């Protein structure tokens, strides 16, 4: 445990130091401007403290972000519109919906691609092309189309945008996983006169599971990004994405940074969650403990 924690903490320490230095450097402009307007001068020693507690800093120093984050998490009722727990939950819910949809889409497409050659030739290239389109360009279109179709619920286009990003890693890994059994394994089942579906359920699907779980960690992170992007242009007033947009539009960098960190924490929690599910599944499938 200690060997794991120490390197992580060292890197964190370095980041904090660089961050403080950058905050002093970037926020000093404002301090010098103020001094010039007042016709006074400030020394370096006087300037530094003034960069640490501005209302609208260019780059908020870590302690300000932590304070704002704490205020957002613990400072209010979780049902409040100012609570980061509330917004985080909205984003979490959207992520889970998109993640689930992405898994279903990815697995279904992978199965049909492995099963039918024609799907392999027609769908696979499009799946790859789909990922080259910037999601920020596509998100407003998805929203407009779903509005046009009479879907008022904002959760639906958000989940679609999220699934659009998260299905791809699942698809690629599952195609590889379902094709991972070698010729010998397939020959063995042929000597048993096994049917195509028996080969799928007894060999291909279980053999693909390690690939599947490896892809989930990538997919859940993609789903979160998709959800946040989906919260930006949709006129959403809820969710961490909306919070970031509000912070940026109203010139409240502290709100933006707190939301940014909240989403990073959420991402970490999601990855730990997926990792735990993976471990449980691996134990149940007889892997070494």
């Amino acid at each position, binding site marked *: 445990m200690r060997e794991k924690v120490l390197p992580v903490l060292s890197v964190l320490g370095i980041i904090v130091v660089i961050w403080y230095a950058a905050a002093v450097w970037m926020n000093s402009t404002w301090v010098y401007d103020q001094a010039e307007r007042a016709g006074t001068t400030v020394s370096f020693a006087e300037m530094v403290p003034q960069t640490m507690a501005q209302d609208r800093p260019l780059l908020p120093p870590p302690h300000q972000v932590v304070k704002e984050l704490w205020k957002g998490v613990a400072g209010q009722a979780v049902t409040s519109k100012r609570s980061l727990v509330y917004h985080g939950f909205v984003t979490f819910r959207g992520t889970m919906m998109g993640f689930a949809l992405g898994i279903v889409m990815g697995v279904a497409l992978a199965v049909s691609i492995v099963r039918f050659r024609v799907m392999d030739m027609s769908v696979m290239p499009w799946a790859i092309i789909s990922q080259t389109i910037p999601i920020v360009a596509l998100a407003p279109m998805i929203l407009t189309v779903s509005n046009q179709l009479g879907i008022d619920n904002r959760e639906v286009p958000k989940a679609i945008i999220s699934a659009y990003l998260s299905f791809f890693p699942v698809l690629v890994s599952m195609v590889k996983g379902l094709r991972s059994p070698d010729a*010998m*394994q397939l*020959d*063995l*089942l*042929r*000597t*048993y*006169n*096994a049917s195509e579906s*028996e080969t799928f359920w*007894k*060999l291909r699907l*279980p*053999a693909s*599971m390690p690939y599947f779980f490896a892809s989930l960690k990538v997919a859940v992170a993609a789903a979160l990004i998709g959800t946040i992007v989906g919260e930006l242009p949709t006129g959403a007033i809820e969710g961490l994405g909306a919070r970031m947009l509000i912070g940026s539009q109203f010139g409240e960098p502290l709100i933006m940074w707190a939301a940014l960190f909240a989403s990073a924490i959420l991402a970490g929690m999601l990855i730990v969650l997926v990792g735990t599910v993976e471990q449980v599944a691996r134990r149940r*499938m*007889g*892997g*070494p403990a």
Partner: protein
Amino acid sequence: MAAGAPVIEAKGLNLTFQTGDGPVHALKDVNLTVNRGDFVSFIGPSGCGKTTFLRCVAALEHPTGGTLTVNGMTPDEARRKRAYGYVFQAAGLYPWRTIAGNIALPLEIMGFSKAEQAERIERVLELVELKGFGKKFPWQLSGGMQQRASIARALAFDADILLMDEPFGALDEIVRDRLNEELLKLWAATGKTIGFVTHSIPEAVYLSTKIVVMSPRPGRITDVIDSPLPKERPLDIRDSREFIEIAHRVREGLRAGHGDEV
């Protein structure tokens, strides 16, 4: 079917693969009869078609000429009747199944009841001396034990022909000797017909009642030796005069096959 009746009959068997470099004669004019209860070894250098012949018998390859019957049927029909168990060079156990679960695999596909599965698993585990290992996972077993488990898997559904493609090729010699001894015991206990592909002359001579010597390009049979060794074979039979004579004849056969090329 009576003991000694023909089980596998090949007449004028040909198999040509079409490759980018032109046709490859994997098998050319192969004639062979394997009788019930025989232990037949196929020996020869790489590319002599020994594995290909075994795969033809198992209907994993399809000959391009000649006739091949298994129990009087085509290999495909025989496969549908589950006439043989196949053991590959690698054990190929599913890592997500226990040893018992792996042995249950063919039984599940062939529709045996749960009770019958359990009974058969117990029986074959005992046959390959893995009693008590049913609940272990493959990674908990040594390479030799894994290969024994894969033999148990091939025995579980009572196919009367056992086809083994270099099953001990990846194991060290000490383990190999032991498994050879066990395989002979197993063969005596079950009376199965065994087709066994190998690279090793001592292994072929020690195990077989019939040794088929093959040579490459095109793959063909150069010699068929009916072994005069008794059915009961302790390991030290390998120092006997008969044993050395047969081994010598196999070596001559292999050399003659190679001589053609030069």
